[in-house]
């Protein structure tokens, strides 16, 4: 119990990596739609994408457990496609994490895209740029730091995710026992020495990774300014 649980550590990183990749694929078009689109329904889209922050994570996990379970047609459909039910599996955690961390990907992107000079957007449009070109050549490069923030926040929020994993995971080593679950178990078992070690590894690596990411973006930013 007292050794560092590297299996859980690797699982957390894998979960956060897969979740972040999926989130970017969803959040970039969504944020572009919210910023570029017209119509009141976009306010509803933006509100919906922020909603996972409102629910207590264990409650969100409970709703997902029911939704993805065999008692709904949706849950049965997914189980038929995948060949196994989603609850208590890595894939289930990915689905839960994508929903749980969605606001942390969408919000920085919307803020960043919205702050891009409209003159720049209009000029690109006059030159014939479609939405895809606008996003890849204008929004992402100009709002680089927001793009980076979306990646970092999605990743870290998923690493630190607890309530949804607790509810949806079933604590299976190698499949659903993530580092935050291990850390919680250590605290609840009064194994404070192990908890301190686990937390120190998690915090240390996060600080290193964040500093590395932010320093590269700072360098590029200053080159651009010079």
């Amino acid at each position, binding site marked *: 119990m007292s050794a560092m649980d590297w299996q859980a550590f690797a699982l957390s990183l894998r979960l956060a990596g897969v979740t972040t990749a999926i989130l970017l694929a969803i959040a970039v078009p969504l944020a572009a739609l919210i910023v570029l689109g017209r119509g009141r329904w976009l306010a509803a889209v933006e509100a919906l994408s922020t909603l996972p922050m409102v629910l207590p994570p264990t409650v969100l996990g*409970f709703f997902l*457990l*029911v939704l*993805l*379970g*065999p*008692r709904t047609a949706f849950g049965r459909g997914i189980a038929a496609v995948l060949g196994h*039910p989603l*609850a*208590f599996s890595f894939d289930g955690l990915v689905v839960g994490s994508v929903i749980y961390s969605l606001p942390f990907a969408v919000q920085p992107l919307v803020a960043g895209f919205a702050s891009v000079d409209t003159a720049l957007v209009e000029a690109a449009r006059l030159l014939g740029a479609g939405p895809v070109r606008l996003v890849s050549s204008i929004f992402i490069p100009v709002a680089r730091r927001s793009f980076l923030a979306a990646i970092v926040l999605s990743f870290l929020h998923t690493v630190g995710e607890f309530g949804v994993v*607790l*509810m949806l995971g*079933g*604590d*299976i080593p190698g499949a659903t026992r993530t580092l935050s679950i291990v850390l919680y*178990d250590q*605290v*609840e*078992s*009064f194994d404070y020495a192990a908890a301190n070690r686990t937390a120190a590894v998690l915090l240390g690596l996060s600080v290193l990774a964040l500093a590395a990411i932010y320093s590269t973006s700072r360098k590029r930013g200053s080159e651009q300014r010079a």
Partner: protein
Amino acid sequence: MPKQLFAALLPLLVLAPLGAQAPLRVAAAADLEPLLPPILSQFERATGIHAEATYQSSATLTAQIENGAPFDVFLSADLSFPKRLIEAGLAGAAGPGDSAAPITYARGTLVLWERKDSHLLPPSLDVLRSPALNRLAIANPERAPYGRAAVAALKSMKLYDRLKPRLVTAENIAQAAQFVDSANADAGLISLTSALTPTLFADGSYFVMPRDLYPPIEQGAVIISKTGQRAAARKLLDFLLSPAVQAELAKSGLTPVR
């Protein structure tokens, strides 16, 4: 505007604590949540003492008390947590004669629970031996008393090694029940108190696990050492042990000790 709002609220902040006698603060194990509120109301009617309960896992409450949480009484789901607090000098003697041991106020009962629409046979020991049992939900055996009892029962039946890969572990007994009630697990070893709550009673059926399969789940109470309301705390424990309340515990799925 915010300044005016603050000025308007300030008297409330100052006056609120003067309003009433401080309530008796009860740290209660999560499995008591369905049954303790009416008992505390009866206690207030009988004695005039207002008690407020906080429900958490016994481990969480123990950690909170170790770090100075302002509780007066701790009703644990087992004996190990109260003993830990007594050894640390943070809690004492709940029983008569100031014996330095937690007082057992009830015993827990382990049941096998299934949904009524389960593909398995109605709950019995045969269900645990059945190859059709794919996922069995239990509470965390490292610390949840019912989780510990569930593993002990499976080991007594020599089924633990076979079922281990099929176990899904929940943080607590309520969550283990939710795993089964949402049909994500086929069956669960949960507490009788959970199985008797209205939702689970309507959704499923249970089988009481034979008592010789697991060590008794004794629920212990202690009075927190630094309480300023020792007399009121003792009254609450006496009330819990009174025949009327013990009978009520039995109806809710706990086994009386008196």
